[in-house]
């Protein structure tokens, strides 16, 4: 194999005594490349040498950014503080038990937040149960399966859904979803799933289930478009790695795509949940607005956000107002706790395995 013709590209002679490297002519023509630089100090060098080091600019930039970051803490603390201060009457009257009480009687001044917390959590979680599989399906279709021509229109439509004001969703729900719920879907669910006990009692078309469905439709575009972005960011080398092992398309999506983007997907779900927890208008229009806790999803309910929107303007008496503000505090806390639980879940799942994709 020792041949004078044998040359190397970049490893000339490394541990290969039997191969004689003959460097190509173009590399030997200029043995000292530095000599080709201009002899006189150039304008550019002079200019760069006289440039300011930028240390001041860097420091002030860092300070401004720190201020921006701190403003987040300040805003959160400020909102929390205001909520606590303005609900002091109610806090003094009912203490922290307010969050566990079921009474809501403005006439006799007896207030509790539990039915509202239940309504908020039940509708939001139910909405997630419906929206997440659908959103994942949309995202998987868009990133992995969709023909190129359909990709842009479907993406555009999903994003359009996110831009519709919630009151429009509410109107649509009142005129379309409520009758369907009352006349078609409700009786169907009662007939086939009545045994679960989740679909009992009178069905007027408005209630927890209707509110959950409209919430699911509203959070679907957020979750699916975020998930789509996250899945698009998974490098192709991951997909090829799985395919090359003899994976089917679904296995490739499961191992190569979903597994690598699971943290991002949980983040997208959390953003959707955040919107569901705080959504006011559409839910208020179809949930029935009655503070009760019922196992049946046909039953009317009430959410934290809806009760504030409905009753704030007509709240007479300081205690009533204070109780409504404490409802706001409850919503604030529910959001924080739900997010904290989600973070814990992510941490528990990904512990030990860094999820960064190269």
């Amino acid at each position, binding site marked *: *194999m020792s*041949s004078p*013709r*044998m*040359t*190397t*590209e*970049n*490893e000339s002679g*490394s*541990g*290969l005594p039997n*191969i004689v490297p*003959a460097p*190509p002519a173009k590399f030997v023509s200029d043995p000292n490349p530095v000599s080709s630089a201009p002899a006189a100090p150039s304008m550019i060098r002079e200019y760069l040498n006289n440039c300011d080091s930028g240390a001041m600019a860097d420091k002030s930039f860092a300070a401004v950014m720190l201020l921006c970051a701190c403003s987040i803490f300040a805003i959160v603390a400020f909102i929390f503080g205001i909520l606590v201060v303005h609900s002091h009457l109610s806090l003094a009257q009912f203490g922290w038990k307010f969050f566990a009480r079921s009474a809501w009687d403005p006439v006799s001044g007896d207030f509790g937040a539990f039915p509202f917390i239940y309504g908020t959590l039940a509708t939001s979680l139910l909405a997630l149960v419906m929206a997440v599989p659908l959103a994942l399906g949309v995202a998987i279709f868009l990133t992995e399966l969709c023909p*190129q021509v359909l990709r842009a229109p479907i993406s555009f439509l999903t994003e359009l859904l996110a831009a519709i004001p919630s009151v429009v969703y509410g109107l649509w729900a009142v005129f379309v979803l409520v009758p369907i719920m009352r006349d078609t879907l409700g009786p169907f669910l009662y007939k086939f799933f009545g045994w679960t006990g989740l679909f009992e009692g009178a069905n007027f078309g408005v209630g927890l289930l209707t509110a959950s469905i409209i919430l699911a439709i509203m959070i679907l575009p957020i979750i699916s478009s975020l998930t789509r972005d996250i899945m698009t960011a998974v*490098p192709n*080398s*991951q*997909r*090829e*790695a*799985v*395919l*090359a*092992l*003899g*994976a*089917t398309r679904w*296995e490739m999506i499961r*191992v*190569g795509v979903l*597994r*690598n983007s*699971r943290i991002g997907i949980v983040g997208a779900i959390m953003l959707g949940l955040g919107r569901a927890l705080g959504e006011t208008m559409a839910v208020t229009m179809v949930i029935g607005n009655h503070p009760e806790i019922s196992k049946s999803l046909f039953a009317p309910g009430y959410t934290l956000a809806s009760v504030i929107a409905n009753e704030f303007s007509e709240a007479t008496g300081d205690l009533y107002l204070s109780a409504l503000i404490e409802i706001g505090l409850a919503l604030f806390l529910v959001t924080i706790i739900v997010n904290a639980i989600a973070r814990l879940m992510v941490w528990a799942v*990904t512990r*030990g*395995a*860094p*999820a*960064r*994709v*190269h």
Partner: protein
Amino acid sequence: MGVGILVENLNAWYGSTHTLQDINLHIPANHATALIGPSGCGKSTFVRCLNRMHETNPVARATGVVKMGEIDIYKDASPVEIRRRLGMVFQRPNPFPTMSIYDNVISGLKLNGFRNRQILDETVERSLKQAALWEEVKDDLKKKSGASLSGGQQQRMCIARALAVDPEVLLMDEPASALDPVSTSKIEDLIFQLKSQYTIVIVTHNMQQAARVAENTGFFLNGKMVEFDSTHKIFTNPRDKRTEDYITGRFG
């Protein structure tokens, strides 16, 4: 044991670009075959046609006959079945970052529903030993993520992952081009040992690498295979002027 591959009139396109033109070639079983040529000459496309990875790109297509042993891979089998029998190692290490080293190595078996713990354990040890990585990682197989290894280790883990499914053919698309000389020489030693049991096709930019590991070498240029012969012949007495120009560095 590996099987040989027979390629007849293989043509491949990316969109309207004709990336491979009338390739005819016989890759012998249980030998290492190197493919050399300048960037963009079609050698990677060729390798990707052998395990039907080429067609995963929506604008890509291929025609012709590729026979692995008795099987015509474009007619007699699905891409999934083919890829189970041809392992592939890519240019850049692509470990699964969310999996431990152990799970990375057995990912191919797990995908196909293999669950026997004892055999999985044995397979991990066997393939990591074949890939010369066992001694370095045996203590934290399940503790460390595949992505926490160094680049050279990751690539050897990817080789172990490909070997774990016991393929008949191992395709390597510039497996050492992103690695330092020490890792490179480890991978070359590996190829040298593996070729008694597997048919190896290796794409490389490094001609000494081709000379070191392969019995046969093919030279690709502009989508055509200019010359295919024993490595010795290619590097000492090539038939074609273009081959000679390329291997002596007088090209272009």
